[in-house]
């Protein structure tokens, strides 16, 4: 914790880019991973897996 307060945070932001931009505005080190929850339902993804020969 002391290290964090002394050196400042290094942020990995997953998803909404605005959170990353806010951190960057504070001049903190940050990267963003453009991630979204799957658009397909779990049921559809499971069915597609079966078509591909999975369980």
């Amino acid at each position, binding site marked *: 914790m002391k290290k964090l307060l002394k050196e400042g945070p290094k942020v990995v932001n997953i998803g909404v880019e605005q959170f990353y931009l806010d951190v960057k505005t504070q001049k903190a080190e940050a990267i963003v991973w453009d991630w979204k929850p799957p658009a397909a339902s779990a049921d559809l993804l499971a*069915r597609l897996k079966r078509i*591909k020969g999975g369980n």
Partner: protein
Amino acid sequence: MIDLEKANQEALSRLLAAQPLIVGMGIAKETVPGMKDKMLLHAGPPLTWETASGPIRGGVMAACMYEGWAKTPEEAEKLAASGAIAFDPCHHHHAVGPMAGIMSPSMPVFVLENRTHGNKAYVTMNEGLGKVLRMGAFGPEVIEHLQWMEKTLYPVLKAAIEHAVKKGEEPDVKNMIAQALHMGDELHNRNKAGTSLFLRTLAPHMVETCTNSAQLAEVFRFIDKTDHFFLNIAMAAGKASLEAAAGIEGSSMLTVMARNGTEFGLQVSGLGDRWFTCEAALPDVLLFPGFTREDTNRDIGDSAIMETYGVGGFALAAAPAIVQFIGGTPKDAANYTLEMYEITAGENSMFTIPALNFRGTPTGIDVLKVVETGITPVLDTGAAHKEPGKGQVGAGIVRMPMDAFLKAAEAFADKYLSE
């Protein structure tokens, strides 16, 4: 149980083996299968006059006046709303059309033949930029220009193509696309190189068949200033190639993506000619001066065939200069291409990208990969004004909406898990 990988590789290999050539020109009603009098073909999935977007309505009104079915825009609108005109997607007639994609019975069309598989595809001539029918404009200058294209441009090109065909020198569109990718085109929103190659290929035949030098000069000047002239031809090449990949049992590869300004629609090789549709996206465009984002119509045009074919937005890495027209940076352009490898069945054997060490373009969109990754196809496209008669407002990037892919994936699972 199907062998998905095998089916997709079969569809992809048929697409890659296609050899689209320009084999002729003709008048739509005498040339395009199923074209009838008082019929207008349009871009995208099926629509009605009631659901038609502004640019489609404007294009329909222009076509009614061009055909002589109406004298004024008001008469044309009344006629179109009366039910006296049949509307049908270009795709139902082995055809494609950019933006509104209106093809009327008297319009001249290019005929392309896929020499490998024997099927044909049809497309109108590109009108140029600005206030043109395909952008929904219908003023007197639009109709006059269409008449000029029919009376002056068409005869010169038709004679030249027939001359080339007679000599066994059918213009090889696939070869031109491959070369254009090495000259900075991505073949959707930048066709400067493709247009130049087309003109260079056909020029000797034009000179050998046209004795009227003034007419010939007019044609050369028009094509020279119409950087998108090659787009239509490349689209028909895509259509002729993709039709050969349709109907492969068990394949989840797309054979059609198209938008009509209201809806986006797609077709999947292993699901026949069934459309899967949803609301069309709103393009994020670099606007021409004087327009606002609120002026922009929803995404429109059969030109999404270019990305389905493995170029356009999928080949943005080949076209760094295009960002001046569509926005962003050359790095953004390269990143779009790299992302598209995640959702395609393979890489192109003929279309390569110098900036990616001559890697083949991502080709053969797999609907299942789109749904699984959440990555939707990216297009770089033109955008029309949402009101009829206003023309183009800009150009930019647009993602195809996920809902149609979800519907197709559900149908794919329904069909192939029950077998």
